[in-house]
């Protein structure tokens, strides 16, 4: 049986096609999900892709979290459904309170697009088990509001519980606290990541293949389940 991985399209989603391509290259079946549809079409996992959902004129992700599809995604995530939020998807997960913290305007106030080195700090989540602990990877990063912030107690808690999934190396591209690039929930099924693994799944069009692991991780978990 092939795992079915849903990719949500909000109005203003941009990397939804890329996420579906990545799912396919990882060996799973990509399923397009529509923001107005509560029905998740029996998918085994969900990706919230990058972009500017609903234009993000208010605050990134603030409107998307109230969309019909998110009602089901939020409920599913609480029951263990693997959910990966990339960039705007990470913002939506924070707005939905599935993940702690928030994403703010980059400290240098510019949009930034670069190949970013990361260290995988937690290789046990639903989306990172294909990586070795402390593995260094390079995947594209592109955001205007990617500065991860949370209060000190939350940050300490995330560190203590091993919930920092990935950290920026060499250069902190957006002013994120403690160089945090991605975090997970307590159960490890929900992961939010600011850089874009779906843009590093073909050597022809990305900096390498380092992003594929996020998608093979969840596949492995689903097949073994």
């Amino acid at each position, binding site marked *: 049986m092939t795992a079915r991985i849903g990719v949500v399209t909000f109005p203003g989603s*941009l990397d939804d096609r890329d996420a579906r391509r990545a799912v396919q290259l990882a060996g799973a079946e990509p399923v397009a999900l529509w923001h107005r549809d509560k029905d998740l079409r029996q998918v085994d996992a969900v990706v919230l892709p990058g972009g500017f959902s609903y234009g993000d004129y208010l605050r990134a992700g603030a409107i998307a979290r109230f969309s019909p599809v998110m009602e089901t995604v939020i409920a599913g995530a609480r029951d263990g459904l693997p959910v990966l939020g990339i960039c705007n998807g990470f913002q939506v997960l924070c707005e939905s309170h599935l993940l702690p913290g928030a994403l703010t305007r980059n400290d240098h106030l510019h949009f930034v697009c670069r190949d970013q080195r990361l260290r995988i700090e937690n290789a046990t989540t639903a989306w990172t088990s294909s990586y070795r602990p402390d593995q260094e990877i390079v995947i594209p990063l592109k955001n205007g509001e990617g500065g991860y912030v949370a209060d000190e107690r939350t940050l300490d808690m995330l560190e203590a519980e091993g919930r920092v999934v990935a950290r920026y190396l060499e250069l902190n591209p957006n002013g994120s606290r403690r160089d945090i690039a991605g975090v997970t929930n307590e159960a490890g099924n929900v992961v939010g990541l600011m850089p874009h693994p779906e843009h590093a799944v073909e050597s022809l069009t990305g900096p390498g293949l380092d992003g594929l692991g996020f998608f093979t991780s969840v596949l492995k978990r689903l097949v073994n389940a």
Partner: protein
Amino acid sequence: MTTDAGTASERVSTTIDTVKRAVDTPGLAQPWAELGLKRDEYDRIREILGRRPTGAELAMYSVMWSEHCSYKSSKVHLRQFGEKAPPSDALLVGIGENAGVVDVGQGYAVTFKVESHNHPSYVEPYQGAATGVGGIVRDILAMGARPVAVMDPLRFGAADHPDTRRVLPGVVAGVGGYGNCLGLPNIGGEVVFDPCYQGNPLVNALCVGVMRHEDIHLAKASGVGNKVILYGARTGGDGIGGVSVLASETFADPSAAGTRPAKRPAVQVGDPFQEKLLIECTLEVFREKLVVGIQDLGGAGLSCATSELASAGSGGMRVELDSVPLRDATLSPEEILMSESQERMCAVVEPDKVERFLEICEKWDVLATVIGEVTDGDRLEIHWRGEQIVDVPPRTVAHEGPVYQRPYARPVWQDALQADDPAKLSRPGTPEELREAVLSLVASPNQASKSWITSQYDRYVLGNTVLAQPEDSGMIRVDEETNLGVALATDGNGRYAKLDPYTGAQLALAEAYRNVAASGATPLAVTNCLNFGSPEDPAAMWQFAEACRGLADACLALGTPVTGGNVSFYNQTGEVAIHPTPVVGVLGVIDDVTRRTPMGFTGEGDLLFLLGDTREELGGSAWSEVAHGHLGGLPPAVDLDRERLLAEVLVAGSRDGMLDAAHDLSDGGLVQALVESCLRGGLGARIVLPEGTDPFVALFSESTGRAVVAVPRSEELRFTDMCRARGLPATRIGVVDGDSLDVQGQFSIGLGELREASESTIPALLG
């Protein structure tokens, strides 16, 4: 201030300038001059209509007959692009539509075009640049294509001028803000600094789109009874008069003064989210074959869309202007017709498909309204509050505007400029002086790394970007199964064109053509954005005429037809015009994108060959600018046969796997190209300049028709045999090696020092 203005509707009803009223009041004074029309143009409108125009008709004619929309000064010169067009099987749609369409094989068609948004970007850098991107994307969309990438050739005043700090960051943020939000990768372009652009930056925007042959759509309204649907954003008061000199007060009822919103900005305000929805929605209605004809709303808004659709179609058109959804209920009919509110499209749809069309719009939360229908007459009729306010032959508005033979004359200073030979400039003589000259060249704003700017653009979205800046061309994969792809480059050199506009335009084409070939793609077709001073100045008009003639001749010689483009006149501050700046975009096709040739040196031990001939050519060169602030003499000579040969070798070398890297030689000559390829790939180079050559000329001359290539040792014989057989000079100049640029017997500069020189300039000026 009046106290008895009454309600808005009462006021309007008493002041509607209907066709009937126009007939009854032939002597009414009209503000034609304020609208930018000339006396004889106004007289011609009266002659066409057999009466005075109504206010709405006058509004339409004035914007459609503006230079921007009618090309009235440029038309006689632009004709050459058609007359001298090389025979080409690739052209599916030529000049005259929203954008040209080129066959790239496997059933795919590609459409691309570059346009200017210069003046709005000076007034309001962010929105000017943003809506420039939005406008060109809609042009591409209107042809039936999915937009797949954008590029932005930008020109600003001196890099260290305080106003550049105002304009540049705004423009870059606008390009990025709109394009990033739209989900289109930005894959290339240019950033050039020159004091001549201080009061008049050039913001050109290019978009490329892909479709299947059968999906090509045209802007025409045909089929009596078909519905005209306006969809997208509501119509507001922004951008009124963007293309003419209209003051919106002109039409206002004086009694209403003070009761209406203040005059709105002439620069439009963009909403990229709305445009993203418009793209997806439009592609879906195309997919379901619901559209007979389509036009985007850009300059001149509804005036343009309705008259062009009706003019190109077989019948007439009737529009109920009251149906147009408004942001501001107080807009007059004239203002509605002229508004340049962004993110709007106009489609012609068969009656039985209207319901489905509206459903798809609803799915994407796009507002759509039937505003009229195609009629069996030959008139464009527009109604407002039950009265007829427009009744015109649409061709006279859209396609039969005035045409001028503007006088032109070679400027008196041209001879002196060309006589000011750079040979007299003092040159670096010692190895140490050469070393310093290289470092200051590399660190100069025009040659320095632009990554501070381009890293503000998303180059990854859509997942098909094979090459992006700073590579020689941007390359996009078109088909994920077959790996068919297209490459695009834009180039222009105002300094060359100032010295000789005929040659300068050819050099712009030659460079873009060479850049495409250096990446491994075969050049197919051309688009251009011609940025010049006032057409009313005979000197600027001469530059324009010469550039058109040069470009048309070169397109014929290279076998690459012009598919469309844009003219931007009046780029001047007071009496001082910018350098004539023809920007040329070349589209190429590559059968297998995995064969593309990148520019960076990555193969340790690869052999370096210089292809082509080097002469002493320093007129308009980067060195003369950086070292002496000099502009004079003649630009490098053009040899289009050589360009063709070079391109064939570069493409064959890529296809047959003989090249690890290739980089074209242009501004800054050989040494600049070597530095860029070293820094890009992270490896150094050991260079041995050919015996008997002057090291300075060898390194800094800007002779054209040249490229540097890195050839794996295993391919050396095959490659040199090929060059010999084809008659292209290939001189072995060194090897990829180490971590410095080492010109033997002269100097050595570590990559770290070069990188510091290249990458610190722009952030220091603008960061």
